[in-house]
């Protein structure tokens, strides 16, 4: 489903985030990216969603070279990817249900159908009773769950999560990992960057370790 072929990413200023990375990810796979901070985990995820473009090599998703996509094609790639951010990136001027509805509104769903799906997604992450709450009123764990609901509401085949449990205490983290297991079971491809060893051991799945922009284990 995802193929990295000798991918290099150098940022302006000379910092090399990824160097000569070759990696294949199968459909339905659960993959953990590990490594110290700055090892290139976030960059790898960004390359998949075309948030960054590689400076060398090719990243293909479903046979599409995403580094070469035109700016008009990128939104349609992203609609098939659920993105979960460490800092949540919620919209603080809208309530929980409106945040969850955003991807569906963007994709052009009928409002009634969208409401049904948004409630289902909120139910899955346990926030259905907070649908009118504003994000500031949510705890850190709840904000992360809302971010997850927004990522999966349009039922993407691929979910990318960047340190989804990074800021959470252990109890919340386990809740969230259980949610990911559920998505994995229904066939969603999951790529999760983390340095939470317990999580990896609890969930199984493939582990790819990055060090200074290179794969050192698990390719």
């Amino acid at each position, binding site marked *: 489903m995802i193929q990295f072929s000798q991918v290099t990413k150098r940022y302006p200023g000379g910092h090399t985030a990824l160097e000569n990375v070759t990696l294949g990810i199968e459909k339905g796979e659960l993959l953990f990216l590990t490594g110290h901070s700055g090892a290139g985990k976030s960059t790898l995820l960004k390359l998949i969603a075309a948030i960054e473009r590689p400076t060398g090599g090719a990243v293909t998703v479903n046979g599409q070279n995403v580094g070469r996509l035109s700016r008009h094609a990128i*939104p349609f790639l992203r609609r098939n990817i659920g993105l979960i951010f460490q800092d949540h*990136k919620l919209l603080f*001027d809208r309530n929980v249900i409106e945040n969850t509805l955003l991807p569906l509104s*963007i994709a052009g769903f009928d409002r009634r159908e969208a409401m049904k799906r948004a409630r289902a997604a909120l139910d899955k992450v346990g926030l259905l009773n907070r649908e009118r709450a504003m994000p500031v009123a949510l705890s850190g764990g709840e904000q992360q769950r809302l971010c997850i609901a927004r990522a999966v509401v349009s039922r993407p085949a691929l979910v990318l999560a960047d340190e989804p449990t990074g800021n959470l205490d252990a109890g919340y983290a386990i809740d969230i990992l259980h949610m990911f297991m559920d998505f994995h079971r229904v066939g969603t491809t999951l790529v999760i960057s983390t340095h939470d060893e317990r999580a990896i051991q609890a969930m199984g799945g493939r582990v790819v370790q990055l060090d200074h922009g290179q794969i050192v284990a698990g390719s």
Partner: protein
Amino acid sequence: MNSWLAHHLASLADAVRRLLRTPFSAVFTALAIGVAITLPVGMYLGVTNLNRLAGELPTQPEISLFLKENASQGERDALQHKLSRHPAIAQQRFVSREAALQRLNAQGLSDVTAGLDKNPLPDAWVLSLRHANPQAMEAVRQEFSAQPGVERVHADSAWAERLQAMLGLGRQAVLLLSALFGLALVAIASNAIRAQILARREEIEVSRLIGATDRYIRRPFLYYGALQGASGALVALGILALLGMALSEPVGQLASLYGSPFRLRPLDLAETAILLGAATLFSWLGAWIAVTRTLRKFD
């Protein structure tokens, strides 16, 4: 299609909400746009009104041919004969000195004429030419100045020509001013939208990350810009209406002093529609430029 329409309606509602949420900046932007529109449109109204006034005056320039007081009957007959057969002259009309005096009295100058012990006015012919160009007029003027019994030939075309030239200049100036202020309008709207964009930077960024097209992101801003332009146009219409009310009485008084039924004409329905449409369009364009520039900066 349905959801597309829904997003348009949602964008419009969103734009209205945002305008109402910052009433002060919305009002001030509307005022700035309104004043920018008022200047060229006010000038346009001035020129069209002057044009109408000029239209009430004889458009064909005339030549007045004044006779000597002591012109003999023979000279008068010869002159009439010559005028009636002249190829350049389309019409001629004799105004006797008595008729001229009566006209003055009718125009409300009887106070002045009553003080005169004898009629000072000469007999005159008023001519209009087939081709009223300056050369033809000058030729006729010279030809008849030399005719015996003729005191003076006056070609009063110059002021009419000057008026027409000035009105033409005015129309040109209105066009140029409109273009200039259209540009100003785009700039004002673009600036107002920039503040909006800054306030919603995060929303734009997040929307892009989860698959929003440029078009989707632009939409609410375009509605905001369009609404801002339309409200500016309404302000301009308000200012023009106030100006019209303030000026209509003095203009009416002035006109009636000259015995003219002339009244100021406000914008008609079509012109009002064009004004609203153009302001909306230009402001929309300003918003489009501002948002598109921001979106490119994100890349």
